[in-house]
Structures are given as C-alpha cells and as structure tokens.
C-alpha cells in the first residue's frame, strides 16, 4: 500500500497475516514444552538429597539461558539497527527485550525457591546470581529507555546503544563477581561436574531447547503484534490527516 512506503524503505514489511511458518513454529514450541514437562516430572529421576524440589532446576536453567539468549538477540539487532537504520531490527529488539524481561523474572523467582531448599538461603552473592541480578536491572533500564517519550527513531537509537553496552557488561560482571567470591553454584554438566544422571541431563538439555523454541515463537508473535500496532498508528495518522486535524 502506498502510504506505507516510508516503512518499506525502512525494511519493515507490514504483512501481519498468519502464515504456515507461524503455525509450524507455534506447534513445535507447544509440543516441545509439553514433552519437556513430561521429561521433567515423570521421566527424570528424583534427586536423592534435594527431592522433588530439584525439578525446578530444569525450568530455572531453561529460562536463565534464554533470558541471556533474548538479550543476545537484542544485542545483535541493536548493532544491525545502528548499521542499517531499518525499523524491523528495532521491532525485533523491542520484542526480544520484552520477552527477556519475563524470562529473567521467572529466573529470579524460581532461583530463590530452589536456593532455599538446596542451600538453605534465599539469596547468595555468588557470580551467577549477581550477574543474573545485574542482567535483570539492565533489562529494567533498557525498558525504561523504551518507555521514554519521543519519536520512535530517537528511542530506537538510544535503546540500541544501551542494548549494546548492556550486553557487553554482562560477561564482565560475571568475571568480576567470580573473582569477588564463588561459593555455591555447582558445575553440573562437564568433566569435573558430578551430580547429574543421564536422564536428568537429557531432560535438562531438552528443556533448554524447548524454551528456546518457545522464545522463538514468542518473538515471532510479538513482532506480528508490534507490526500491527505500527500499522494501526499509520491508519490513525492517515485518518487524522483526512479529517484535517
């Protein structure tokens, strides 16, 4: 359509119809989440010392990885936005950050529940926890910039800049806090790591992938909603122009 021309130049295709790809992505994500629920609650063994509480670990690790992955998407899209100035990358960064906030909140909620039963404390200043907390605050700050008033391209620029800085900061925080003092988090998979049995590792890896697909499906959906919102705004502007306001 002609009055979307400006957006098309910016690399934004405003077609929001459901396609076969959408259905496939949602279908796979849905099926994988169901299977991972089976793997977590029925297939994998109950851990000896911690008991059934340990099962929260699968969700915790799954969301933690994907919270970081979502911010990775924000980082890549931010660089692409600054390099190309195409609005589609800003849309992707917006959506990925929104979903990342949800994931990191799940991490921050499941973590203390598990920590309370495993380590007998709600919180510990330990590298992974410290970095997760800082990642949470960086996400919050990113969202605050996103909700600033002003034109979309100004917000897109500032968010992209902060997204890049924030993502680079996370590994440095991890490194600094690891040096600062490491106490609890076990290395569960790998050579020196111990505590996990075969079927638990399988359930864990599957859950991480299931959440990655879930993240992909959510980003897909979010981008469509965001596009619809932009299209609606265009129509409103057009009408406002027509009736001469």
């Amino acid at each position, binding site marked *: 359509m002609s009055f979307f021309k400006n957006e098309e130049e910016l690399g934004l295709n405003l077609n929001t119809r459901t396609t076969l790809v959408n259905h496939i992505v949602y279908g796979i994500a849905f099926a994988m989440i169901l299977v991972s629920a089976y793997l977590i609650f029925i297939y994998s063994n109950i851990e000896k010392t911690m008991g059934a509480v340990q099962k929260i670990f699968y969700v915790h690790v799954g969301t933690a990885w994907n919270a970081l992955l979502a911010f990775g998407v924000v980082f890549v899209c931010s660089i692409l936005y*600054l390099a190309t100035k195409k609005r589609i990358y800003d849309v992707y960064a917006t959506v990925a950050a929104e979903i990342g906030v949800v994931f990191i909140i799940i991490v921050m909620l499941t973590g203390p529940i598990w920590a309370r039963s495993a380590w007998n404390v709600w919180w510990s200043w330990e590298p992974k926890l410290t970095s997760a907390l*800082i990642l949470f605050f960086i996400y919050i700050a990113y969202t*605050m*910039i996103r909700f600033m*008033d002003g034109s979309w391209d100004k917000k897109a*620029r500032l968010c992209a800049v*902060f997204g890049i800085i924030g993502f680079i*900061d996370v590994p*440095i925080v991890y490194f*600094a806090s690891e040096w600062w003092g490491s106490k609890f988090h076990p290395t569960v998979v790998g050579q020196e790591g111990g505590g996990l049995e075969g079927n638990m590792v399988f359930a864990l890896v599957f859950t991480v992938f299931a959440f990655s697909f879930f993240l992909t499906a959510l980003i897909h959906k979010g981008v469509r909603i965001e596009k619809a919102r932009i299209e609606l705004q265009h129509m409103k502007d057009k009408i406002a122009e027509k009736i001469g306001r």
Partner: protein
Amino acid sequence: MSILRNALTIAGKDLRAERKSKQVLPTMLVFAVLVIVVFSFAFDPDKESTKALIPGLIWIVSIFSAILGLNRSFISELKNDNIQGMIIAPVNSISIFLGKFFANFVMILIVQAIAIPMLFLLFDYQFNGSLPWLLLTIFTGTFGFVGIGSFLSAIASNSGISEMLLPLLLFPIATPALIGIVSATKIILRHPDQIEKAYGWLQLVGGYDIIFFGICIVLFDYILEV
C-alpha cells in the same frame, strides 16, 4: 589532535561556567559531606568494626555526589537548545563526549579531594597505607564510572525524568568497576601487605575503563544524531 583541543575547549567552557555560577560543585560537596554525616549516624564511628566500612564509604560518597554532577552535565545544555548548537558546530562528536567527560572528571576529583580526607577525619581513621596506590585506585575507579556516566547522562537527558533515570542506567553498567575498585581500596586501606592483590583488581578496573571508554567513543555519534 584537533579533537582533543576542541574537547578541552568544551571542558573549559563547562568549568568556567561552573566557576561563575557556582551551582553544581558546591551542591556536590555539601551532598558528599551530608552522606558522610548520615553514615556516621547510621554506623557508630567510634567502633572498631566501622573502620571496615570505610573503603565502601569512599565509593558510596563518590558515586552519589558524582550522580548529581553527571545529571547536570547534559541537561544544562538543553537550555536554549545549546546541544543543537554543539551538534551543528564543526567539531567531531567525540570532542563533545571527551569535553563533558573532562569537565565531570575534574569536578568529581575536586569533590573527592575534599570529601575523602573529611571522611577519614570524621571517622577518626588513621591512614597508614601507601598514598600513591590509593591515589591511583581513586583515579582509575573514578575514570571508569565518570566515563560511562557522562555517556549515559547523554542518553538520560533525552528523557523527561532524566534525574531519576540516570542512576538506574549507571549502577548496573558500573557494577564491575565498583566491585573491582571497592575490593582494591579495601586491600590498600586494610591489608597493605597484600598490595599485589590490589594490583590484580586495578587491572580488572583498568580493562573495564579501556573497554567502556572505547565503546562510548564509538557509539557517542549515535546518541547525538538529530
């Protein structure tokens, strides 16, 4: 070279304006001293255990008063659209960042030069560590968070609630520098015999300074775009 010369011109302009108006620096100073006073109410200065808090206190006082100065740094340019003038002026945008950074850095060093001895005085702390190490630590740490702080202040100045936004942006990003610099200061003040550990922390903060200062210089162009 002209980048640096322009930066010094901008920094000089800020410092001269501050010398005439006398608004930001005295406020920062009074605020820093007030924070120390509040702390002496919160933690009994006569107790020996309170001495362990002094390394952290130095940085709490520095950062809290720095936030005040950093906030003004770009907001003051919004009046009469000064910032537009700076963007249009035939200077590299890096000069604007460097200029703001120099001005903030100088002001915060002045505040620290007065507030830290005051802190030692009010908490009756006998400093017998190595003074050059302490100065180097303060310089490295302040460089780190003033660099990224000046940058984030430019981002925050676009918002209607920039005074509230800046701490939210700065604290998470400055975390690694804070962890490193507080640990280094703790070693220098309390365990002068383990100075090589402080050197390790200083390397971390130095690395942070270089990485983030570099990123700020690369990305500053995008913040000022019209």
